C-alpha cells in the first residue's frame, strides 16, 4: 500500500474526515455565528439568555477524539502514512499566548472561527468573502510575524 501524501486512500480519508467535520458543524449549528456569540456572551447567564450549546459540541468532540487517540497509540503508524504528524512545539511561549489572544478578539468580534468560516461557503452568507479574504491575509502575514518573533532571543 502506498504511504505517500498523495495516495488515493490518504486523500480519500481526508475527504471523509472533512465531510464529517462539515456535517458536524451544520448539525450542531456552529455555522451560525450568532449561536456561537450567544455562547460567548456569558454576561447573559443571570438573565437566562445564555446558550450553552457550544459546550455540548466541543466536549463530546474531545471525548471521541480522545478515544481515537487512545486507539492510535496501539498502532506503529497511521493506516495510510508513514508516521504520526505531531506538532514539534512543546513550550508555552509568547507566540502561543499572543496568537490565542488575537484569535480570541477576532472570534469574539464575529462568532466565526476558521472551521465555520470555510464551511459557511456552502450557504454564501452576505459579506463572507470579506471575512475569508481577511482571514487568509492574516494567516499569510502570521507566517512572517511568527518568523520574526521566534528569531528574537527570549528576554527572560
Amino acid at each position, binding site marked *: 500500500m502506498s504511504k505517500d501524501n*498523495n495516495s488515493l486512500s490518504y*486523500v480519500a*480519508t*481526508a*475527504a471523509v*474526515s*472533512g*465531510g*464529517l*467535520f*462539515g*456535517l*458536524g458543524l*451544520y*448539525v450542531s449549528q*456552529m*455555522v451560525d*455565528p450568532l449561536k456561537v456569540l450567544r455562547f460567548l*456572551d456569558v454576561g447573559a447567564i443571570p438573565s*437566562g439568555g445564555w*446558550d*450553552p450549546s457550544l459546550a455540548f*459540541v466541543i466536549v463530546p*468532540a*474531545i471525548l471521541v*477524539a480522545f478515544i*481515537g*487517540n487512545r486507539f492510535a497509540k496501539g498502532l506503529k503508524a*497511521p*493506516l495510510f502514512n508513514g508516521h504520526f504528524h505531531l506538532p514539534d512545539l512543546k513550550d508555552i511561549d509568547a507566540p*502561543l*499566548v*499572543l*496568537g*490565542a489572544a488575537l*484569535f*480570541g*478578539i*477576532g*472570534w*469574539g*468580534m*464575529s462568532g*466565526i*472561527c*476558521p472551521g465555520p468560516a*470555510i*464551511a*459557511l*461557503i456552502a450557504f454564501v452568507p*452576505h459579506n463572507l468573502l*470579506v*471575512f475569508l479574504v*481577511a482571514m487568509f491575509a*492574516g494567516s*499569510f*502575514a*502570521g507566517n512572517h*510575524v*511568527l518568523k520574526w518573533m521566534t528569531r528574537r532571543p527570549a528576554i527572560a
Partner: protein
Amino acid sequence: MEFFSPVPATIGGVLIGLSAAILWIGNGRIAGISGIFGRILPPTGPVRWRLAFLVSMVAMAGLGALAFPGLGVGGPGAPAPQLIGDPLWLAAAGLLTGLGTRIGNGCTSGHGVCGLARLSLRSAVAVAVFFSVAMITVAVTGVV
C-alpha cells in the same frame, strides 16, 4: 435558554470528534482547520489532502442542510446564516482570526478538540486564553 439545543449539538460534536479520530488514525494528521488552510498558502505543505478535506467539509455542510433541514440556519426553508457587523468590522475580525491562529498554531479545532484530546498543555493554555479573550470581547463590544 430559548436557543439551547443540546441534542443536535451533541450529535454534531460526535461527528466532529469522529472526523478528528479518522484523520489521526488514517493519516496521522491533526484536524485543525487553521493549520489545514494555512498550509495551502505559501510556504505550502502537501496540498492535495488539505484541499480534499476543505472541499468535502463545505460540501457536507451544504448537503447536511439539504438532508436535515430546519435545525436552525442554512438550507432550504431556513434563514441564511447572518454575519454580524459591517464589512470593516468583519475584515478586522477575519484578519485577527487568521493572524492569531497562525501565530498561536491552532484554533478551536486544532487546539480545542485535537489538542485537548491529546492532553496537550500547550493547547490547554491556548484554549483558556482564546475562550476567555473571546468572552471578554463579546462583553466589551456588546455585539450580541
